[in-house]
């Protein structure tokens, strides 16, 4: 007696600003397409996420969309959905990065971006800005240590910059994605490394904007700061020339994309196992396209 | 006799605390089967010596021989094994546990699986409680007992170790006549069994009646040990305070003024009913009764700590409703409570703060800030006036001897200059010298036109100080007596046990009305 699809969305952590954007788009899509939508926030707790998905299943959803708290612990989620006979679409964080597409379990799908790309884009742009001649000291502001994106983006930074012997990694420290911590850490780096420090690459915009405040307060506008996510504040900051660049992770593409995939599966359409939504580097030059 | 060597010999015991040398080369011996009294002023070092003996403190010097063996570096648990047990001056029950678990704490009976045998514990507890005549279910939580009953449980616990030596540090200070008699019976029984007892008390009468020998302490030194029969009370007192005592009860009849406090038909849902009395300016009203008579609850109700169920209270002729102690204090009342630890001291705070807490209003400068110099001055005055023994005003009160803590609390209330002062067992644990000082103060206050209501279980004190005596029995008033020369301890006991009851008729009427 059900003509409406019911989809459960399990968010890793709603205190992560970027996730709220993805979820916004997913929700909007559901509303516009007559899909019944339930939602849960795991607060960065894997077990809680499992429990919430179980509750979705109990409640009788037709599919679940999941931002995995930890991609290494996706197995139990896949298994419980398989048992319930419903598909699971992972979004944003990729549980299948280490396996071939054909090995992905039959009821599981992924929509998202390659986290490492964001780090690579930042680093490449940095090289473009600073050149290869003079020595460049940089530091990395990392997200929550338990987070795959934090690890992958940092890896992307290093992967590129390790190739250039003039680029020296001065420090890396986690600021838990938070702006205030980004600011405090940047203040201390500026003191510690002085003129040696030329760039701060941040795993997200929030921490990057904190670093921008520290840089300005110390009158060190020569320090290049970059973020990831392209949140509204970052757009403004790039426009004002305070932030050098950000990397757009396409929230709309991911949020809508995941819902679309889930809907298609339920309708019985043929869908790809993995849908890539590419990252885009956003700099003052191409900013206008994203406002 | 092979009793040449005493049961216990403590030689040259030294003990210091920061700022205080509590014991100065003290020697002390206890013979087999004797009841040995230990007396001295507050802070003389009695409890400290006993705590060294039971293993709570490690002495800084000296040696201890028990049963001819040198013992050193032992814990309380080991002391209990040697055969030494102790009733502590400061009550220390585990409040929210049953009586029986308190009794057997640390040596709970086990069954064959190594689990606690509750049934056996219950039965053994019944036996022990029977021995001290305490009719309580062993499963009752300690918190539901009155102070006196808690003390009886402590006594029961100490004797249940079947120790060779039992230390009793002021066991009777929380007891009334009835329990005290019980305690003496127990002591006699123990003595006949050959148990030795060290008995510490400030009630010197008791000592004369039950002890064999007495050791007197002054300022951390042993100033002499004697057969009790060879000394008079006055001699003991003189040894304690270093000079002869002049007069214990300096009671002068004060000029009686207006009625300050008028209590009419006051009842509490649970603890007492239909209590009426008046107190005039300059008058000392004594309240007497057996343990559990409800005296404490009566005062607590008047003072706004418990809700009354019926009756009225008039202060200076005006009807008042008192719902909190703050309101009571605002009406010029003060209340020295019975349970020093629970409702008296701020253990970790300094002597100064302990005295000044209700009084900061009078030490504010023009900016409404506390003038600490004035506070210190005010406190120092009282410390001198009632001879509180403390190394400094900042000393945490928990490090003072019990008696000195009591004096600090008294100073607290004297400083509020109350018109109506309630004193619940005001001299509990206080030495004779200081007692006399306190009586002098009470008298002086009465002379200044204050009303004093004094609850006391010490009949001599009531007879010595009160103008009139209100006696309670099981939550009822059985008499209000003018304290004339004809009034005897016996008479009061008759009222207190309910064998004489001036208000029996009224009670009946009350019943009909109720």
């Amino acid at each position, binding site marked *: 007696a059900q003509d409406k699809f019911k989809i459960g969305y399990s968010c890793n952590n709603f205190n992560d600003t970027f996730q709220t954007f993805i979820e916004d788009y997913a929700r909007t899509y559901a509303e516009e397409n007559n899909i019944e939508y339930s939602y849960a926030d795991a607060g960065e707790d894997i077990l809680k996420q499992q429990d919430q998905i179980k509750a979705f299943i109990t409640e009788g959803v037709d599919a679940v969309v999941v931002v995995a708290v930890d991609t290494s*612990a996706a197995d139990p989620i896949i298994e419980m959905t398989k048992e319930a006979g419903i598909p699971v679409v992972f979004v944003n964080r990729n549980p299948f990065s280490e396996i071939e597409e054909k090995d992905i379990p039959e009821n599981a799908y992924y929509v998202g971006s390659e986290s490492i790309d964001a780090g690579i884009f930042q680093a490449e742009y940095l090289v473009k800005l600073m050149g290869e001649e003079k020595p460049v000291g940089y530091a990395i502001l990392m997200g929550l240590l*338990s987070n795959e994106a934090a690890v992958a983006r940092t890896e992307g930074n290093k992967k590129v910059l390790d190739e250039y012997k003039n680029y020296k990694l001065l420090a890396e420290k986690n600021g838990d994605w938070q702006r205030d911590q980004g600011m405090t850490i940047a203040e201390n780096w500026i003191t510690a490394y002085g003129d040696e420090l030329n760039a701060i690459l941040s795993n997200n915009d929030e921490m990057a904007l904190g670093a921008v405040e520290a840089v300005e307060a110390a009158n060190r506008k020569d320090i290049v700061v970059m973020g990831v996510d392209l949140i509204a504040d970052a757009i403004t900051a790039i426009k004002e020339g305070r932030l050098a660049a950000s990397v757009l992770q396409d929230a709309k593409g991911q949020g809508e994309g995941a819902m679309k995939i889930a809907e298609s599966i339920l309708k019985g359409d043929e869908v790809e196992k993995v849908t890539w939504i590419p990252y885009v580097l956003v700099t003052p030059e191409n900013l206008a396209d994203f406002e | 006799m092979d009793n040449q060597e005493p049961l216990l010999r403590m030689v040259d015991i030294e003990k210091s605390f920061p700022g205080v040398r509590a014991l100065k080369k003290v020697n002390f011996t206890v013979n087999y089967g004797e009841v040995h009294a230990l007396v001295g002023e507050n802070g003389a070092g009695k409890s400290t010596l006993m705590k060294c003996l039971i293993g709570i403190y490690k002495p800084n010097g000296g040696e201890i021989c028990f049963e001819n063996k040198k013992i050193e570096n032992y814990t309380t648990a080991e002391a209990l094994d040697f055969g030494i047990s102790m009733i502590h001056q400061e009550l220390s029950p585990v409040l929210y546990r049953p009586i029986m678990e308190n009794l057997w*704490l640390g040596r709970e009976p086990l069954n064959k699986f190594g689990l606690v045998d509750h049934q056996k514990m219950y039965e053994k507890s019944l036996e022990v409680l029977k021995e001290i005549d305490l009719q309580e279910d062993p499963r009752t939580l300690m918190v539901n007992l009155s102070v006196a009953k808690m003390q009886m449980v402590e006594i029961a616990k100490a004797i249940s170790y079947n120790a060779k030596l039992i230390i009793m540090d002021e066991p009777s200070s929380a007891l009334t006549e009835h329990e005290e008699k019980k305690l003496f019976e127990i002591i006699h029984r123990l003595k006949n069994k050959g148990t030795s007892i060290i008995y510490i008390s400030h009630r010197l009468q008791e000592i004369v009646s039950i002890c064999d020998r007495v050791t007197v302490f002054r300022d951390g030194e042993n100033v002499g040990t004697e057969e009790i029969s060879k000394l008079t009370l006055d001699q003991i007192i003189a040894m304690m305070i270093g000079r002869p005592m002049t007069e214990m009860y300096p009671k002068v009849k004060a000029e009686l003024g207006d009625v300050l406090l008028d209590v009419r038909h006051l009842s509490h849902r649970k603890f007492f009913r239909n209590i009426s009395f008046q107190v005039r300016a300059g008058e000392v009203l004594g309240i007497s009764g057996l343990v559990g008579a409800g005296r404490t609850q009566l005062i607590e109700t008047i003072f706004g700590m418990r809700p009354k169920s019926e009756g009225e209270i008039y202060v200076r002729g005006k009807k008042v409703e008192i719902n909190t102690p703050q309101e009571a204090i605002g009406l010029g009342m003060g209340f020295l409570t019975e349970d020093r630890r629970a409702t008296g001291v701020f253990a970790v705070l300094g002597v100064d703060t302990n005295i000044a807490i209700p009084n900061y209003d009078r030490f504010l400068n023009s900016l409404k800030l506390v003038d600490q110099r004035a506070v210190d001055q005010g406190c120092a005055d009282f410390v001198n006036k009632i001879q509180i023994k403390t190394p400094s005003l900042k000393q945490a009160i928990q490090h003072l001897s019990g008696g000195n803590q009591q004096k600090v609390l008294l100073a607290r209330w004297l400083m509020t200059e109350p018109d109506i002062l309630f004193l619940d067992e005001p001299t509990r644990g206080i030495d004779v010298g200081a007692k006399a000082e306190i009586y002098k103060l009470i008298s002086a206050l009465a002379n200044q036109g204050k009303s004093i209501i004094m609850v006391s279980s010490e009949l001599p004190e009531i007879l010595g100080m009160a103008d009139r005596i209100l006696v309670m029995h099981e939550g009822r008033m059985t008499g209000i007596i003018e304290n004339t020369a004809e009034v005897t301890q016996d008479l009061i006991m008759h009222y207190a046990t309910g064998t004489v009851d001036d208000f029996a008729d009224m009670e009946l009427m009350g019943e009909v009305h109720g």
Partner: protein
Amino acid sequence: MDKKQFNFQNMISKYGIVAVLILMIVGMSIVKPSFRTITNFLNILTQSSIYGILALGMTLVIISKGIDLSVGSILAMSAVVAASLGQTSTATSRLFPNLPELPVIVPILGALAIGTLCGVINGGLIAFTGIPAFIATLGMTTIARGFAYIYTNGKPVSTLIPGFRFIGQGNFLGVPMPVVIYLVMILITWVLLNNTRFGKHVYAVGGNINAAEVSGVNVKKMLLLIYTYMGLLAGISGVVATARMVSAQPGLAVGYELTAIASTTIGGTSHSGGIGTIWGAVVGALVLSVMRNGMTILGIHSYWQQIVEGLVIIVAVILDMRKNARKA
């Protein structure tokens, strides 16, 4: 039904928190039929098992007037140790590449050992240096967490031997294994607290440490043992968590200490020491997991979930207090 009026006031003041729990369950069952399925009840029990086990130890800790803020970190530390010793030989990223595949008991014992060790350190610090439990365990929180990260190099440890899967997702007579383990630990801890000398002394230490001391209780040893037991339970929780996820992460169980403390406190254990029951800890943990499960099923937005959770904790404890109200 005819005459017996249902009386909310009465029920609450008689049964306190249990009444709250029952009302929550009844209320949810009426609103959402999917709530009152056997599967869902087993889910709820499974969900409460991990912090439920922590709450058992926390009850002892809090009765003894202590606190343990480090249980979440110890859990994570134990979990990654268990996982690292329990990877299949085919796992892509093995922490110990040369380790043979071990029987599942080895990782389990490893986890319990590491949990116990952390507990011993906590207890030792508290007992022998006299620093407040709050500080000792706060320090342990960041230390154990740091080691968990270093041990795993910040990466999750996954692809575990099938033995874990049984512990996490298998069942015994229809009861999920995590629940079975929880029930066993409830029973053991209950006996420990109520029927052993150790248990009586836990109450004494918390109720009146002086009384305990003068009665010959070895207070230091007691503190050491209490935190050790807490550590052991954190280790057990770590195993259950690893088994449920069939993997372990160093960032696991952040904030679980608060959930465990909240469970015991909701269940009536007093932070002033000497008062508390295992029964209360179990009910408290259930209140929290019924609430979380219920809100997810009702589809309440996570922002509002936070608010409701806060309100429920407060209201539950207020109602429970009224039961105990004995002011004259």
